[in-house]
């Protein structure tokens, strides 16, 4: 939940853009296009560190990993505070982006593999719970950051540096609690009364393990990589545009003066999406223990594509409630993709090195973090330009541009749907012969 604060980093964007001017941006202040790279770098380093250090995590266990994660994530805040003090954007890229991003990657994968070992009977619920915490971080991080900035602001400062230091200290104390309480079960541990599925009873659940270096040579790994990448690209592309999108589709110009969505109401919409992103992680992933991982991904990707196609209709009918409900459902399945994929990996490759394999798969997230927003921005700008050139009013063109974006997102999910259809059990030649090694607590 602490490292999930990254989802709320956008609350700093506007204040960071007027560090010098205080009331409004002035020459010498950083541009928003430069500031958004702090978040982008953090997500890129999340994926890279998870991929590079996954095997180290498996060797050293969750406690050491969580401690390193806490040190990196929280010192990232401290270096960023120094960056504010020195007015150096590069220090923010290095602090929150690189150091914080490494903390994110290590902190993200360590509870996943640990909980998978504690809940061999319900892996979907276990990973759902671990990744739900990350999804919920923004709901705490956002009001906490806003409250701290308000507390520390003065006539000459917006209080961002002090807020970074305070948040780094608060999160460090809370993460240390996690470090001290995390434990892995004994290698032969299993829940009371649980009898493991007999070998071969469910072909989609492996009874032997595959190691990390071999896993990435299997087609299953790359099919799951594409599935995660397209699911995240679609969701992150929409999340990055959620606030302006609802304001432009339900504007005063279209609905009448005073009836449009204001920026404050749009902020409530974004918050609601975060909540469903969180709830979906637990609900859908737990459900996957009953349905199986492949069928549940059919729902995420197939139903998700249909819902994206329905969005333009909801916008055309000017039905805010339907529009919001559709998006909440879509975002619940976006979060569910994150939460269910480690259980899918466990089904394919066993639990031996699932944390490290999950780490390698998270490079799909780094890719999607660039791909998703880029596709949305490019499609939107292209459509507005062609519509305006065809004589359509700019406000109508802006609303229409989102329709095209929805069709592109639906197309992305259909690519994932086909990849999921192609997922088959891993061939026996890839499986390791050795028994599971104990992991350090």
């Amino acid at each position, binding site marked *: *939940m602490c490292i999930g604060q990254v989802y709320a980093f956008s609350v700093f964007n506007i204040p960071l853009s007027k560090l010098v001017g205080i009331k409004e941006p002035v020459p010498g202040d950083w541009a928003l296009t430069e500031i958004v790279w702090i978040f982008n770098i953090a997500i890129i380093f999340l994926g890279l560190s998870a991929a590079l250090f996954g095997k180290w995590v498996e060797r050293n266990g969750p406690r050491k990993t969580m401690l390193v994660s806490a040190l990196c994530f929280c010192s990232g805040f401290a270096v960023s505070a120094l960056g504010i003090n020195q007015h150096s954007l590069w220090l923010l890229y290095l602090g929150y982006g690189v150091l914080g991003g490494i903390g994110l990657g290590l902190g993200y994968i360590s509870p996943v593999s640990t909980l998978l070992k504690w809940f061999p009977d319900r892996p979907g619920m276990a990973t759902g719970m671990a990744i739900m*915490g990350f999804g*919920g971080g923004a*709901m*705490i991080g956002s*009001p906490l950051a806003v409250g701290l900035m308000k507390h520390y602001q003065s006539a000459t400062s917006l209080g961002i540096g002090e807020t970074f230091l305070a948040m780094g200290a608060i999160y460090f104390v*809370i993460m240390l*609690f996690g470090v001290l*309480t995390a*434990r*892995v*079960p*004994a*290698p032969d*541990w299993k829940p009371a009364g649980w009898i493991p599925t007999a070998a071969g009873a469910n072909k989609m659940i492996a009874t032997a393990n595959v190691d990390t270096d071999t896993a990435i040579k299997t087609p299953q790994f790359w099919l799951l990589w594409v599935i995660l990448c397209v699911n995240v690209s679609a969701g992150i592309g929409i999340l990055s545009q959620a606030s302006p999108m609802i304001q432009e589709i339900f504007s005063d110009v279209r609905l009448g003066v005073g009836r449009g*969505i204001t920026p*404050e*109401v749009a*902020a*409530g*919409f974004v*918050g*609601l999406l*975060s*909540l469903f992103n969180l709830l979906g992680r637990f609900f859908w992933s737990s459900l996957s223990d009953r349905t199986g991982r492949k069928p549940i991904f059919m729902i995420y990707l197939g139903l998700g594509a249909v819902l994206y196609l329905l969005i333009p209709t909801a916008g055309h009918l000017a039905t*805010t*409630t339907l529009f*919001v409900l559709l998006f909440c459902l879509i975002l619940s399945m976006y979060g569910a993709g994150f939460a269910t994929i480690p259980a899918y990996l466990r089904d394919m490759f066993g639990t031996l090195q699932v944390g490290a394999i999950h780490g390698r798969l998270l490079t799909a997230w780094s890719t999607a973090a660039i791909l998703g927003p880029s596709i949305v921005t490019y499609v939107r700008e292209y459509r507005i330009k062609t519509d305006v050139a065809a004589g359509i009013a700019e406000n109508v063109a802006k609303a229409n541009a989102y329709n095209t974006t929805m069709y592109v997102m639906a197309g992305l999910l259909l690519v994932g749907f086909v990849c999921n259809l192609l997922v088959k059990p891993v061939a026996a030649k890839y499986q390791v012969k050795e028994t599971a090694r*104990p*992991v350090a*607590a």
Partner: protein
Amino acid sequence: MANQSKTSPLQVALAWIFVLIPLLWGVSQTFIKALALFK
């Protein structure tokens, strides 16, 4: 080696409280702000 001792119910309850209090505060804040969407 993994520690095989049992966690006390008090520790489990404290851990849940530690997670649920900030989470419920965040959820309530989100709902309050989202209500404006349906007015």
